[in-house]
């Protein structure tokens, strides 16, 4: 995928004017945050679970090599194969070779952000293997030659008319604007692909070291058909997803669905442990796990290590005022929102993604909802410092992007604005906690509600922390 992060400013400006996109983003803002809040309210232990999950992830990262070794040992004991890939290119080649070994013509795919990260589909296609996305959202995007704009709701930027048009064009059936009808149509269309595919590729939410199992958490059941019907199942996963035991996986499962969609539990949580066993009547005959590093091992021991705790729940973007205003595509690469603003510079280079850590109001909401308590604003600040050290940030790029960064490049003015503004905003927002009109900043508030600051300004906190 072409990196468009350097054009964040232009992307954002276009996004803000895009009436259809703004309508679609309304669906996100009206849904995920409330559903998460309701699910959290039903589980009094939720915050304690978050503490345990943070601590467990820290333990895992401190012993990452050893848990990965144990995982590999047990995958092999189950009859599977593990492939280690340092770069995206290594991973693409490895996956293609497995497909070619099977003389594969088509592969079905469950939803996997790592395969987006390594740009797998284009590569397979160019090499004569046809990938078919089977997650409803991903399928819609594939028909439209589009990319996900959200890590769990990939087609969140589309409205139903877009889906209806895409289906009408590709399925050659009468057009319908009824979501139930559209889903039935996709179900019917994809059945033949599920059975015809030579290889099924899925991601993994976790890798269990103890048992050599991979797990996917899905609501549609497409991932299960993808991995059960073809002769070969390839799991593509990044290395930080390993957990010690089934009990430890369970801790994260309790947090994942609630943080993501606000469900009590995802419909299908499926563990895969190797190929078909003697006597089994179905299931894949070959089982491969492709472990992708792609810059993650460099984060171990760095100031960004905490980012490796991420379980890809999407809560941070669901609650982010910037994401909610400009949508995922504005970020210009695979991972959007706060988690993307930390990960993308690591994966594509700060020189290509320096704007992203600036694409924040530093309201702190992301950290507040993150199930593994990743200090996202702090990590974004680290990137800003690095960028500054490298003198990579032209002031012209920052101005106009947001009122915040406009003032940030003028420290005195910013401090003045922020402390006056902070008090003013709190007054103005009243009980709602949001304000939609702000003097001096109509370029900003024309398009979004400015979240009311919850306490001290960023600079005040920054000073205190660094004392």
């Amino acid at each position: 995928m072409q990196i468009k992060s350097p054009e964040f400013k232009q992307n954002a400006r276009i996004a803000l004017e895009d009436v259809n996109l703004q309508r679609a983003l309304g669906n996100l803002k009206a849904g995920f945050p409330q559903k998460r809040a309701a699910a959290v309210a039903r589980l009094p232990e939720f915050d304690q679970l978050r503490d345990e999950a943070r601590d467990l992830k820290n333990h895992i990262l401190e012993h990452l090599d050893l848990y990965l070794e144990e995982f590999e040992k047990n995958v092999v004991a189950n009859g599977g194969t593990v492939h280690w890939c340092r770069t995206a290119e290594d991973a693409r080649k490895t996956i293609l070779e497995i497909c070619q070994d099977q003389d594969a013509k088509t592969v079905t795919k469950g939803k996997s952000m790592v395969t987006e990260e390594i740009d797998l589909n284009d590569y397979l296609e160019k090499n004569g293997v046809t990938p078919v996305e089977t997650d409803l959202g991903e399928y819609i995007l594939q028909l439209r030659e589009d990319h996900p704009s959200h890590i769990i709701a990939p087609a969140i930027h589309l409205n139903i008319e877009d889906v209806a048009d895409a289906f009408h064009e590709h399925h050659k059936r009468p057009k319908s604007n009824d979501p139930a009808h559209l889903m039935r149509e996709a179900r019917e269309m994809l059945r033949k692909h599920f059975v015809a595919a030579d290889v099924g590729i899925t991601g993994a939410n976790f890798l269990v070291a103890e048992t050599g199992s991979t797990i996917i958490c899905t609501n549609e059941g497409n991932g299960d058909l993808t991995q059960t019907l073809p002769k070969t199942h390839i799991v593509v996963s990044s290395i930080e997803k390993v957990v010690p035991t089934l009990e430890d996986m369970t801790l994260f499962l309790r947090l994942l669905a609630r943080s993501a969609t606000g469900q009590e539990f995802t419909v299908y949580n499926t563990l895969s442990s190797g190929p078909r066993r003697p006597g089994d009547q179905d299931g894949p005959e070959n089982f491969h796990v492709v472990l992708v590093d792609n810059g993650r091992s460099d984060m171990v021991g760095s100031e960004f290590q905490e980012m490796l705790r991420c379980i890809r729940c999407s809560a941070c973007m669901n609650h982010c005022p910037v994401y909610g205003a400009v949508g995922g595509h504005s970020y210009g690469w695979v991972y959007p929102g706060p988690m993307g603003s930390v990960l993308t510079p690591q994966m594509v280079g700060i020189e290509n993604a320096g704007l992203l850590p600036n694409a924040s109001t530093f309201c702190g909401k992301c950290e507040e909802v993150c199930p593994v308590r990743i200090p996202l604003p702090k990590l974004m600040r680290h990137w800003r410092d690095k960028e500054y050290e490298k003198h990579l940030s032209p002031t012209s790029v920052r101005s106009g992007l947001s009122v915040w960064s406009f003032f940030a490049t003028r420290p005195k003015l910013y401090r003045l604005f922020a402390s006056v503004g902070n008090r003013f905003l709190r007054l103005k927002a009243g009980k709602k906690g949001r304000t939609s009109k702000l003097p001096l900043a109509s370029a900003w508030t024309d398009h979004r509600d400015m979240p009311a600051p919850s306490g001290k300004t960023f600079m005040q906190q920054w000073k205190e922390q660094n004392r």
Partner: protein
Amino acid sequence: MSKADIFNRIRGGLHVPSDDSARRAAVQARLDARKRNLIPQRAQLPADELLRLFIDMADEAAAELIELHSAAELAGAIENWAQENGIAHLVTASDEQINNLEWSGNGTLVREERVAQVGDEASLTSAFCGIAETGTLMLYSGEESPTTLNFLPDTHLVVLRASTIVGPYEDAWQMLRQATGGSMPRTVNLITGPSRSADIEQKLQMGAHGPRRLVIFLLHGE
């Protein structure tokens, strides 16, 4: 070699000393202990309340539930259900519980023991256990229980014995380890309600790629 390269970077980042026996011991201890993390109060109730919780949570997840007093009623209940729902054909697993069903054969229901195929209307399998915490079924693959039965047909019928309902997932893992002698089955399926998607405008639609209906026959008694 990618693996060595990745490991070197991780170990370098962590400043692993040349003698890392302490780290190895910590990892082995964690793997051996299979320590349980915090288990919510909700999952730690007396048996009768757990049963109630399972029923409520399964209902909330849009599973359909039919309660039966004994195994003797099961075959008849399934035949009735099929008739009422216009189902003429059922593919089934071949485990002991299902093999022992005494079908009346009165209706028109045709049964076949095999893996599922595209176009199958309905399947019948046995759950290994139920997890009350979220109304979840645990099933696993084996010679007698093909996985496709759980995913391909339009309707999935599952037999669940009330006596196998546990509170938290952790109890289910323990039961699974006991039942399989510690080795993992090829696949373990935790299923909570029928298939769904909200990928179009975040509006929830039931019946995406997996079964559109999940019907649990809950057996009380023995």
